[in-house]
């Protein structure tokens, strides 16, 4: 199958796009030039709104609308670029940061210009030390060429950008937790409203946008809203980078038009290993409910996946074949949420630990029918009872695989062991 034409991933793997000269030769900063020289900030924001671009960080909120919530009261406002990628199965932002940082910087400047921001922050996941170094060098190069700093390209627009590296905490990808962390506090999500657009960083109006989202802004400005809106479903348009991993032959990032059937995405990633059969897949990271063989024709986009009671999330597409034990997969993911709960909300903190312990027991062959019964109903007391989406992410995968493979869970109780005896099964 032919790869769809890449947008953000164009040149990655062939060119050193972190080098300013190379980036400029490939049309780098043309979008910025067009925005600042030819367009008013309002016109830039209008184009982004008209494109129907939806945030690529996980929530899928329309970017133009998010920007429009900023109050027009003359107060200082901030833009924060969210590069705290930590959703299990997602590795696109790290690739963008390391392989095409200037493109992200360009999208960031255009976006900051559109919303009247003079101070932006880039929040980079603590583990991405190498990525933060690459990005820092790229930012310095952009400053040398006057793409960042005072009077950008001779205009009266000025922007300063500060890089801030985190220190290890999944929850800091949630936008209000990220703002707390940027203020030097524990990364605990805030009660909303007020939303960051009204009271964000240092209490001032703030927009938090994902790395990939900002990247697409550059291309929307260069090629126009109609170009973007015409790709994929009308309400969920554009290309999207899907991170495909797990039991496929060619794991990697694939930039595809939204709406592509799950089956085609798996084919792009080389398909399954010889002799294997698909068992389950997560379309949108650890937080998303699993889908199965019978769902392979579902479109990979925000609304089609929501209709299947799962989500696109940040695009972490994880494939599990028939050698994967669903109880062990669930153990891994419930342990993840237990570890990453910030601890503010009781259902997430206590419920998360409880669920992880029960699933771990089951996986070890030490679980009981009572564990299965409790796991079947506990969803009602954990989901929807927390300040932020982390608590709501504990149960979807577990519940979906328990419903689909009840016998596999039951067998762990009756046989006091895993019936699959998975061991290095995924290694080709």
């Amino acid at each position, binding site marked *: 199958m032919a790869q769809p034409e890449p947008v953000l991933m164009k040149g990655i793997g062939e060119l050193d796009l972190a080098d300013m000269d190379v980036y400029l030769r490939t049309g780098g900063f043309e979008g910025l030039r067009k925005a600042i020289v030819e367009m008013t900030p309002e016109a830039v924001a209008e184009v982004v709104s008209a494109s129907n671009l939806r945030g690529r960080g996980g929530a899928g909120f329309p970017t133009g609308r998010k920007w429009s919530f900023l109050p027009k009261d003359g107060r200082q406002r901030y833009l924060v670029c969210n590069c705290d990628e*930590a959703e299990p199965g997602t590795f696109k932002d790290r690739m963008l940061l390391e392989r095409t940082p200037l493109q992200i910087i360009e999208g960031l400047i255009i976006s900051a210009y559109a919303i009247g921001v003079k101070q932006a922050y880039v929040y980079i996941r603590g583990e991405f030390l190498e990525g933060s170094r690459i990005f820092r060098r790229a930012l310095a190069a952009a400053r040398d060429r006057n793409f960042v700093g005072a009077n950008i390209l001779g205009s009266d627009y000025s922007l300063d950008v500060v890089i801030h590296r985190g*220190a290890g905490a999944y929850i800091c990808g949630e936008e209000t937790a990220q703002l707390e962390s940027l*203020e030097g506090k524990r990364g605990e999500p805030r009660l909303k409203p007020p939303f960051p657009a009204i009271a964000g960083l240092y209490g001032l109006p703030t927009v938090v946008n994902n790395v990939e989202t900002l990247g697409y802004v550059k291309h929307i400005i260069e090629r126009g809203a109609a170009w973007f809106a015409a790709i994929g479903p009308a309400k969920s348009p554009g290309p999207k980078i899907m991170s495909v991993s797990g039991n496929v032959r060619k*794991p990697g990032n694939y930039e595809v038009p939204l709406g592509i059937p799950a089956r085609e995405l798996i084919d792009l990633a080389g398909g399954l290993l010889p002799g294997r059969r698909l068992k389950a897949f*997560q379309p949108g990271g650890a937080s998303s409910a699993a889908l199965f063989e019978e769902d392979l024709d579902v479109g990979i986009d925000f609304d089609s996946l929501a209709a299947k009671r799962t989500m696109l999330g940040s695009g972490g597409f994880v494939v599990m074949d028939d050698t994967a034990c669903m109880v062990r997969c669930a153990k891994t993911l419930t*342990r993840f949420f237990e570890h990453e709960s910030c601890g503010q909300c009781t259902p997430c903190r206590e419920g998360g630990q409880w669920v992880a312990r029960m699933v771990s027991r089951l996986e070890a062959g030490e679980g009981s029918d009572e564990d299965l019964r409790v796991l079947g109903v506990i969803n009602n007391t954990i989901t929807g009872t927390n300040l932020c989406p982390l608590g709501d992410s504990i149960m979807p995968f577990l519940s979906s695989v328990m419903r689909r493979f009840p016998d596999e869970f039951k067998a762990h109780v009756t046989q006091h062991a895993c019936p699959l005896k998975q061991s290095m099964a995924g290694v080709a």
Partner: protein
Amino acid sequence: MTPQRLARGQELVARYPQAQSALIPFLQYCQEQDGYVTAQAVEDAAELMGITPGEVESIASFYTLLFKEPVGKHVIQVCRTLSCMLRGADDLRDYIKRRLGIGHLESSADGQFYYEEVECLAACDRAPCLQHNLEFHYDLTPAAFDALLEQWRENVPQPAMPAE
């Protein structure tokens, strides 16, 4: 506070409208030099940010990449989440622990190695993966790990947790 630390602290504070935003960068800087967040670093941070040492400890305790006690010179953090698990990470982690002779969150008696099982490192396309002093290593097998271990033993390690 040493003059050098004060100078760096003031530089970091100047990046932000509010001093406390520099707390994590400052602790990262101190950890790069000391190997972990020492009691002195907590005092220094509190002084610079205008908050109490207790507040600094509470905030530092939230973040997994800030160590509150000394750890081995080689910090080995191996992914334990789903995509790595699907490609054999559970058995690989058992192998690594046997080779190092230490368990999760432990340092070796000679102070050389620290081992930790961590959540998804965003390198699922080249699973299983680990970070050694925040540097990525991909497509791991027992043999590949042995080769890395040999290299690490031969070279004097850089600071385990570089600040920038």
